[in-house]
């Protein structure tokens, strides 16, 4: 067949070449969709423009897949979705339908304050819910949700006969809806990591 180039005898890339190359791609992608620091050598304004374009595309995709969801939220849709993309990565295959479902779930959680979130987590950790009545769990349980105050995680861990513990993990200092990481001004020292607070309920 014409498309097999028989004259090219060069060997294919070695596995370690692929792995190293994949690391470069992953670093760029983390910057674009997960706010990771900008890899060296890229133009920050361009990467920012691309990240914004990706976010716009994601929003348009979800809005098209879930027109009712978008219209029911009205003007808040874009704002809430932008917040959502800052906390939730694109789903497998960047599927707009799945993205819409995840967004809808997130929006419900997003409207709760931390106290209500903890409560929700405790219920999830203590009970098995689903079809029928909620019943007490027998085995250990873990549940987590995003913390409203700052970019942290509320984590609930439950063990039978021991009880349930709630943790608030602050993964990074709270940021406002401000510039993304690659825009931070040089020379500014990072604030110390937040203490992990724990308390028994």
């Amino acid at each position, binding site marked *: 067949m014409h498309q097999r180039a028989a004259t090219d005898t060069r060997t294919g890339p070695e596995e370690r070449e692929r792995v190293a190359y*994949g690391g470069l791609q992953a670093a760029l*992608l983390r910057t674009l969709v997960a706010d990771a620091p900008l890899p060296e050598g890229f133009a920050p304004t*361009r990467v920012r423009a691309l990240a914004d*374009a*990706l976010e716009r595309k994601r929003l348009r995709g979800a809005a098209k897949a879930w027109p009712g969801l978008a219209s029911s939220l009205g003007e808040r849709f874009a704002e809430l979705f932008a917040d959502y993309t800052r906390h939730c990565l*694109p789903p497998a295959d*960047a599927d707009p339908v799945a993205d819409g479902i995840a967004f809808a779930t997130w929006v419900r959680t997003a409207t709760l304050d931390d106290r209500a979130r903890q409560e929700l987590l405790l219920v999830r950790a203590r009970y098995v819910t689903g079809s029928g009545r909620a019943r007490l769990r027998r085995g250990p349980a873990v549940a987590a949700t995003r913390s409203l105050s700052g970019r942290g995680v509320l984590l609930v861990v439950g063990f039978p006969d021991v009880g349930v513990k709630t943790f608030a993990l602050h993964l990074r200092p709270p940021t406002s809806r401000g510039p993304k990481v690659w825009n931070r001004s040089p020379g500014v020292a990072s604030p110390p990591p937040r203490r992990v607070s724990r308390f028994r309920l």
Partner: protein
Amino acid sequence: MSRDGGELGLGIGWRGEIAGFIADLVANAESDRWRLGFVEVVAEHVDPRSPPPDLDALRRQGLAVVPHGISLSLGGSERPERARLERLRTLAERLESPLVSEHIAFVRAGGLEAGHLLPVPRTRTALDVLVANVREAQAALPVPLALEHVAALIEWPGAEMNEADFISELLGRTGALLLLDVANLYANARNHRFDALAWLDRVPLERLAYVHVGGGVERDGLYHDTHAHPVVEGVLHLVEQLCSRTEPPGVLLERDDRFPSRSELAAELVAIATTVGRGADRRAAPDASARRD
């Protein structure tokens, strides 16, 4: 002029939102000048075993249907997934497609999805990986594979060659065909400030499978290839320049979002067909004002 992909003619990207428009256009085709000859369907948007009946109807009316993949991630560091290739193969067989197309890009890495076609670095390593991945894809597909270069807002550091040479070597080593996206060329030439005509003179136009034409918009000093806005004059100018150099087997309008009225969409198709004709005239009579600009 006969090529592996055959003569495709004028085309449009088939999307559910404009399925009615396309069906009517084909049913009421009065002018041979811009009769639709083919459509392209985004491979990931249809079930390969039971694609929309509209596509079968179009095939019965003599149109070719070309599956256009967006998720193989041929430029990715990992090998193309068997299941994705299998899906593309099934679709091409089901639609009796003359060829399939994909992109010179990656869409996932390190467990993350971009949701977008991202450019690869123009390095030897990236080229070697691409060549290996494209060969695997070719081996799994029943028809020729055409590769499209993407529009990119960013440039990787450490480029070892220009884009035209990168594409030329990729096509030379794999035997793949070229899907030339004039809007992507326009966007990259504008955003990265290079000469689009020199690019056209450097890529292997003899490997041309077909051409994409799409709309875009300028935002904050950058041109965005959106497929959601009208085709700009500069893109049509490049279509004419391309057609003054070669006769493309097919030219296809891509519109993905913010669909305009039927009359506007039809007017864009007419404008493309007219521009292709103008370029052909210049090719036929190269002395008359040709190839100056």
